[in-house]
């Protein structure tokens, strides 16, 4: 089984009002050394397969077709193989 951690972020050219609002919030709390705040999505999921290539394919396709909007967003992900935990077999 593989554990995927996916990051989906808005292309830098696109206005990120949430990032702007958070940056403004941090400054008003005194953290003036902070800048360039950008907010994106962090997605975790498990892929039940033994082959890393298969897991890679599934996650890549999921990102391209659903999890990210190619018009506006970029994505990246990491894959970590996880031994099938005892409980899951129960």
């Amino acid at each position, binding site marked *: 089984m593989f554990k995927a951690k996916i990051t989906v972020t808005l292309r830098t050219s*696109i*206005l990120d*009002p949430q990032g702007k609002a958070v940056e403004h919030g941090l400054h008003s709390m005194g953290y003036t050394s902070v800048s360039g705040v950008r907010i994106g999505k962090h997605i975790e999921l498990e892929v039940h397969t033994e082959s890393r290539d298969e897991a890679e394919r599934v996650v890549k396709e999921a990102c391209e077709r*659903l*999890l990210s*909007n190619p*018009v*506006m967003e970029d994505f990246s992900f990491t894959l970590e193989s996880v031994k099938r935990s005892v409980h899951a077999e129960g």
Partner: protein
Amino acid sequence: MQKVKFGILVFPGSNCDHDAHYAVSSVLNQEARFVWHKESSLGDVDVVVIPGGFSYGDYLRCGAIARFSPIMQDVVRFARAGGPVIGICNGFQILTEVGLLPGALLRNESLRFVCKDVYVRVEQAGARFTSACAPGEVLRIPIAHGEGRYVADAETLRRLEGEGRVVFRYVTPEGEAVPEANPNGSMNNIAGILNEGGNVLGLMPHPERACDPLLGNSDGQKVFQSLIQSFAVHETVHNLS
């Protein structure tokens, strides 16, 4: 004149489907039928309406999951064959996700959901969805959305404007497209656009909410009337040939 048959898609999270049905059938006296998202064929329809609502709870991105419903393949076929499709609010978001319209609808710049009347200027009075409007006419139509900021890359924007495919633009009651009139931060105050063929309209405002005079505003009728008239013209031409 024969009644126009409207097919109104229903996703699990749609909540404006009944409003569209009521406007088209009870107010405008046409035929309306619900089409469940799990069906694979639209059946006998003249117009497809993708109504507002939260098709899949709109988690991830508005319309992201709805796009993969079985019915959407037949909608793409219908649109590619020139059939008129109107995507309202969440429907507009689904049309961009499925690629029938360019660009995307992102979170409002205010980061808040907004429900109020806005004013839109008719930029293209000759379109199939605006033939009942005068050029430059200003319509008062309500909006209700949290992700309605229209965004597209520079090239797409240039073509939309150049080819006259921006149909509605947010304006002041006097008709000026200024930042103060923009409720969500959309590029160029864009409120509604057409595809290349001119048969697919996506708009964020809800015309179906401005049809019944009892609720105090019927400007929205014009969008549907234009569509209905386009069939009358089409029909007479058809009979003549």
